[in-house]
């Protein structure tokens, strides 16, 4: 698996995501936001957490207009895989690759803690290492993780089995307890919690390992 991790000037989980990919056996290329091309042969694009452009204007809004995002849109349009974590999820919604938006947390405060996530579907390259219904512990760290979409979008996500994860005890007001969603072709995952922070027994637990392993398994065969 060859993973590209995008680096915006305010990304701060880029290294963490690269390490998690590498531990799952991937080769990782770091890609600068001003680049106009993804490296050849990239299997998956990772959009990491952080504050891409300082969260000015709206989280992810400026990043979504950066040169590399045009390439990411074109990559996913062609059926390429992508994962956006935290700020990366915000960027993917701002580009329109994923539906909905991430609003300010209902409590109006930044929250960093480990929360319970329910795996809603195992039907994707990201989640097939889990069983639907599994509850896993994954850290969150965000100020704007309150997922919102119109009711018809939520119904569609549900009916198409595209809700990847829900919170067992929603910390941020997210509609339908949504923590992560899939694209319609199930090849793009956006999630607010940080699986890369739970991929190492010495830091934050290991419940996120299965996600990277499943991905590596699926994409190495591809």
């Amino acid at each position, binding site marked *: 698996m060859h993973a590209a991790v995008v680096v915006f000037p305010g990304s701060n989980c880029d290294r963490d995501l690269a390490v998690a990919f590498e531990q799952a056996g991937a080769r990782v290329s770091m890609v600068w936001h001003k680049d106009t091309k993804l490296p050849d042969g990239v299997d998956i694009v990772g959009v990491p957490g952080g504050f891409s452009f300082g969260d000015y204007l709206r989280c992810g809004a400026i990043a979504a207009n950066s040169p590399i995002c045009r390439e990411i849109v074109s990559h996913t349009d062609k059926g390429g895989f992508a994962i956006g974590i935290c700020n990366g999820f915000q960027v993917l919604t701002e580009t329109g690759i994923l539906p909905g938006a991430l609003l300010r947390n209902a409590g109006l405060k*930044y929250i960093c*803690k480990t929360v319970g996530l329910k795996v809603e579907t195992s039907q994707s390259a990201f989640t097939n290492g889990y069983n639907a219904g599994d509850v896993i512990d994954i850290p969150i760290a965000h100020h704007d993780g309150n997922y919102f979409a119109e009711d018809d979008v939520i119904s569609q996500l549900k009916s198409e089995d595209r809700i990847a994860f829900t919170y067992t005890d929603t910390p941020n007001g997210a509609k339908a307890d949504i923590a992560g969603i899939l694209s319609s072709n199930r090849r793009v995952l956006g999630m607010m919690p940080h699986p890369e922070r739970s991929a190492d027994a*010495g*830091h934050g637990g290991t419940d996120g390992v299965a996600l990277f392993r499943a991905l590596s398994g699926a994409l190495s065969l591809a």
Partner: protein
Amino acid sequence: MSEPEITPELIASHGLTPDEYARILDIVGREPTFTELGIFSAMWNEHCSYKSSKKWLRTLPTTGPQVICGPGENAGVVDIGDGQAVIFKMESHNHPSYIEPYQGAATGMGGILRDVFTMGARPIASMNSLSFGEPAHHKTRQLVNGVVAGIGGYGNCFGVPCAGGEVRFDPAYNGNCLVNAFAAGLADADKIFYSAASGVGMPVVYLGAKTGRDGVGGATMASAEFDDSIEEKRPTVQVGDPFTEKRLMEATLELMQTGAVISIQDMGAAGLTCSAVEMGDKGNLGVRLHLENVPVREDHMTAYEMMLSESQERMLMVLKPELEAQAKAVFDKWDLDFAIVGETIAEDRFHIVHNGETKADLPLKTLAGTAPEYDRPWVETPPAEPLADVPNIDPIDGLKALISSPNYAAKQWVYEQYDTMVMADSARTPNIGSGIVRIHGTDKALAFTSDVTPRYVKANPFEGGKQAVAEAYRNLCAVGARPLATTDNMNFGNPEKPEIMGQFVGAIKGIGAAVKALDMPIVSGNVSLYNETDGTAILPTPTIGAVGLITHTDEIIGTEVREGHVALVIGDTSGHMGQSALLAEVFNRIEGDAPTVDLEMEAKHGAFIRDNRDMIKACTDLSDGGLALAAFELAEASGVGVWLDSDDTAMLFGEDQGRYLIACNFDQAEALMLAAGRAGVPIHSVGKFTSDAVWMGNTSTASLAELSEIYSSSFASAVA
């Protein structure tokens, strides 16, 4: 535009005394210009010149085989083996945070992070020691919420994990909160960058954000007492931009790799003035600045304003001229300003030119080196009155009283607002005791702690100073770390009052004795004086930040306590109740002497813990709140109960020093007893860990669930 006339009022408004002004006349040999007056006020205020504290700071032990660079640079540098170094410092942002809590605290974070990465280190951990007024005071809630949000807003965006800290409340901080920010970074020991310029005619380069009028006169504001006019001082508080700081860090570290940096200095207090003078002074060179080349974000800025602006996220660097193009390319990549604003000169002058006009022309060495230094009169703090009887109370009632207070309740409300896990190397996030951050890509880790018990320092500055260091030492030993070195952040009232100066001197002496005995030299620090409002001083608060090394993560002492584990206490308990948490929180009595710290015993007990870590399942030091609070905290963190075999108030809540609480299984307890016997270390079985209730003696009890609920909710209900 004509500059204001130099009048006695103008001089006084710059915080300069008539004596100090006479010295200026002597140095300059004529009446100074307005800009020159501003430069002197910036260099000579307490905040920048340490004029009241220097004499005493010099007495602190600052060297040791582990120290690569002690105080005097932006931060201290300590060897951690394998060619690596940890670089750290703690610094206050008290006055700005009281005036404008969010931005004051945010820019405090910004300043300390800059101190660390200026030296070539990537920040890997932060801590915050916060002191607020009583929860019921009308300002407290706003200050707590603003300060915590400001620290989080800056640190989270910048991307440095919070590894720990302290939060306390006391009426003595009603008019002056304390915000002490700590940062530590990692660098290769042979790639540390210092501030001394070298070479004549070398370009002086301005890096980072543009200069505005924010913070003009900030350092002078931080060197005065508050009165009811503080609202007018709000414009002297700077505004932080963590996104720019993050880019400045990345660009600076990248720039350093190009080899283009001769010397570098961040622009902190007194901005361009302080940084340029520092680089020239350390390199025995003069500096000429052409202010028209300074990137500005406001129109018509005067030389005075540019020289005194404390706009954030800026650095000054002396550049190898042949590498200018490469250096500029790095800053272009990160979309940051890069401007050559001056040059080093052979003459000993600080020469400021604006649009061809000389605005200041001063002897640089004299400006840097002859700041006034005062041997302020001081009086020894009188010995505390003996403590009157403390009645016995029901121990569970005592515990409930402690954990109902925001001083001793769990602090998740605070730490959940900070990113404690970014960089994915947090082996232990803030809870009880030290935080631990792994050194990326190695088996090593660093432990971090921040400690002081201001009540002790007030009652007995010498013992209180010792105790702050001893508690830091214990917190590091309790996780299995070897204490390495210390940074001190000295927060006191008005040093012109002999009794306040006496607190300072006593605390310095105590800290000095302790860091020497425990081999934790002071490598950096900061002094914040004049923490008084309307003549009322804060509690003397010498915050100690300390770092310990764990050579392999396997050596970390764990936290998991199970039902059936034995509870052992290392060290003897006599039941010292003077200045204790119980006395203050339950009886509202601030009485008696601080506990005495036996430094030899501290070193011995700490070594015992480290040497026997394999036999310890979990460990915590005993500090304020005594055995009762420590046992509850340790049990609660693992979701188990505890039974302690005493119901005696002094034995449970006494604050004797040099003690640790250990949880281990029965076989380990036997082995530890034997080892302690051999080492001559007192060890006592005090009870055991149980399923779901806390017992003290055989009648006083409460369920873990009830206590946990109080413990986890009291902080937020007091201040949120």
